[in-house]
């Protein structure tokens, strides 16, 4: 990184007033949720900010309620993942009315009018989205390159902006690379649904060569692999490409079931959060939000997977050093700087961070 100025430069890390940030977060039990929960808590301690967490809600209504309560609780900034596009507008308005900064990550804003309104909201600090569409396409390509022609797909909630990108990425990717989608079912948080669904794939479509899954959380990916392993098919005869890292992915690569695994959105959450802290602490003032994007990492082999599990999907490990974190909360930080941090998010970065 370019900016290695010490902590006493600006307010970063040593603010006299303890600022309060509201964190509306989906949960802390999966690899990404747990990791970011730990990262944010660590950074908060380092930067002398207080966090107020609200976990486990998925509706705009509930996110809005949490946001309002955080404003009442005296938060000066609110960070959240907008589970529905309208959440941007509603929570953004609540923040604007209260004069509270807000930052979002992980989701594109699908509706143009909402996007415009949000960008016009002076309290919006970041909008970071990940390029799930192209990522999904790339994952299809990995399968196509292995000669796969027929797949089944596990789709995601079609009104969740990110899931829409992933669904479309898969279907468009399949068209592009000449892959036929035989059957589809939608993910649920119950692993039994996944197992039953994959079993149905196996019996209904004996010629299936691969499975695409938009989600691997809540046991979905584990269940896919277990079901395939228990199917009596030859190891690696069906290739899986799935979003979200999961438990046992390294072995799945080794045995040949897993062909592509996309993960590591944690950095965009961290950047969005730190930029918010930066704004709340009054270090930076900009017109309009930072519009940033992240290209998540697609892992295609066991070694990289191992590395990823050890250093990214591990709440115990702080991949970004304290110096890195402090560097992201400086008056000099601008859109280009944050984008460079996100662009730097590669397997090489993880390797070097792990070694350093």
């Amino acid at each position: 990184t370019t900016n290695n100025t010490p902590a006493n430069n600006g307010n970063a890390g040593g603010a006299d007033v303890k600022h309060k940030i509201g964190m509306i977060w989906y949960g802390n039990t999966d690899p990404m949720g747990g990791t970011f929960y730990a990262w944010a808590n660590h950074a908060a301690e380092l930067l002398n900010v207080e966090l107020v967490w609200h976990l486990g809600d998925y509706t705009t209504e509930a996110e809005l309620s949490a946001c309002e309560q955080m404003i009442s609780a005296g938060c000066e900034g609110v960070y959240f993942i907008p589970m529905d596009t309208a959440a941007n507008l509603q929570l953004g308005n609540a923040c604007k009315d209260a004069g509270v900064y807000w930052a979002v990550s992980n989701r594109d804003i699908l509706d143009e009018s909402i996007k415009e309104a949000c960008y016009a909201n002076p309290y919006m600090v970041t909008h970071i989205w990940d390029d799930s569409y192209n990522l999904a396409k790339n994952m299809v390509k990995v399968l196509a390159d292995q000669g796969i022609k027929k797949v089944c797909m596990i789709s995601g909630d079609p009104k969740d902006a990110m899931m829409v990108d992933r669904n479309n990425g898969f279907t468009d990717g399949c068209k592009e690379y000449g892959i036929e989608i035989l059957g589809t079912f939608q993910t649920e948080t119950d692993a039994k649904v996944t197992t039953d669904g994959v079993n149905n794939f196996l019996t209904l479509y004996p010629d299936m060569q691969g499975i695409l899954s938009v989600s691997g959380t809540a046991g979905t990916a584990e269940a896919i692999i277990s079901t395939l392993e228990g199917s009596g098919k030859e190891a690696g005869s069906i290739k899986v490409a799935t979003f979200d890292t999961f438990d046992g992915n390294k072995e799945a690569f080794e045995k040949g079931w897993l062909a592509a695994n996309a993960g590591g959105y944690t950095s965009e959450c961290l950047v969005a959060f730190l930029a918010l802290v930066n704004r709340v602490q009054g270090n930076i003032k900009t017109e309009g939000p930072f519009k940033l994007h992240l290209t998540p990492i697609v892992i295609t082999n066991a070694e990289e997977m191992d590395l990823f599990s050890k250093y990214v999907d591990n709440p115990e490990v702080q991949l970004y050093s304290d110096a890195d974190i402090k560097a992201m909360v400086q008056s000099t930080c601008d859109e280009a700087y944050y984008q460079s941090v996100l662009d730097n998010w590669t397997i090489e970065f993880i390797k070097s961070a792990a070694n350093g």
Partner: protein
Amino acid sequence: MRDKIRKIIPIAGLLILIILFSLTTGGKFFTWQNLKNIVMQASIALVAAVGTVFVMAHNNLDFSLGGACALSSVLAYLISGGNLWLFIILAIVFGVLCGLFTAVIHIYGRVPAFMGGLCLMFAGRGVAQTATASRYMMIADSGKLNNFWVFLAVVAVVFGIGYFLFNYTKIGKYQKLIGTNPRATDLSGISVNKYKTIAFVISGITLGIASSLALSRSLAVTGNTGLNLETDVLLALSLGGISMAGGSATRIRSAIIGVLTYYILNNGMLLWGMNPDYVDIVKAVFFLATVSISIDRSEYDLIA
């Protein structure tokens, strides 16, 4: 005497919570803004709870709320084509139709109402999830209703009318009689089926209004619209001291006391900044304790 104490427990619990949070949140609880927040957040459940009291008074449980809310919102959106006022009217119409559906299954199908409601909840959720998958159902207009005074007015009117109907008209009085003894109610010349149906219709109306309030908070109808509404309302009403067996001990004030308690508890714990892993545990313990103290066990032959 013990009876009296028991009866004031729900309201006492509410007051204690208010005092506790006033003292322990550094004044953050008792700010105008926060009180406004609480009222707005509680409104949806409160409106739905008012209608639910009528159903519970005649000894039925309406489990359709969440799914019916999603279903009526989706249908209202599709037909209104995104016109806000039309949406509200249609949401109420479809809310009533959902209520009628449960009533018909219950009365003519002779199936316990909660089972019919359960099916509606299930199917309604499925319809909503399927329909919202194919298009994004947003009414940006509805955001203008997301205003404290609008919500307060709606709640005041709904609760006021509910209170009047429940305590001072045949509609409410008969619900309680049916809840106490349906056979005797029929033999007193009161049409049990008609009044049960009326209760479900009222519940449908309040559901439609609640759906509209929910829309104004979330702008869009999604597959998750109204998620867990039935359990939220049920939890809140129990906190408010409602009798699960219905009958003459049913009070409509349970709706207001219970829902406020429920949302103030949520609010206060967040203001405390409590570790989110433990919020639900504290909530549950408070809930079990309040109900254990306030419940009137003599109303139950056997506590179900």
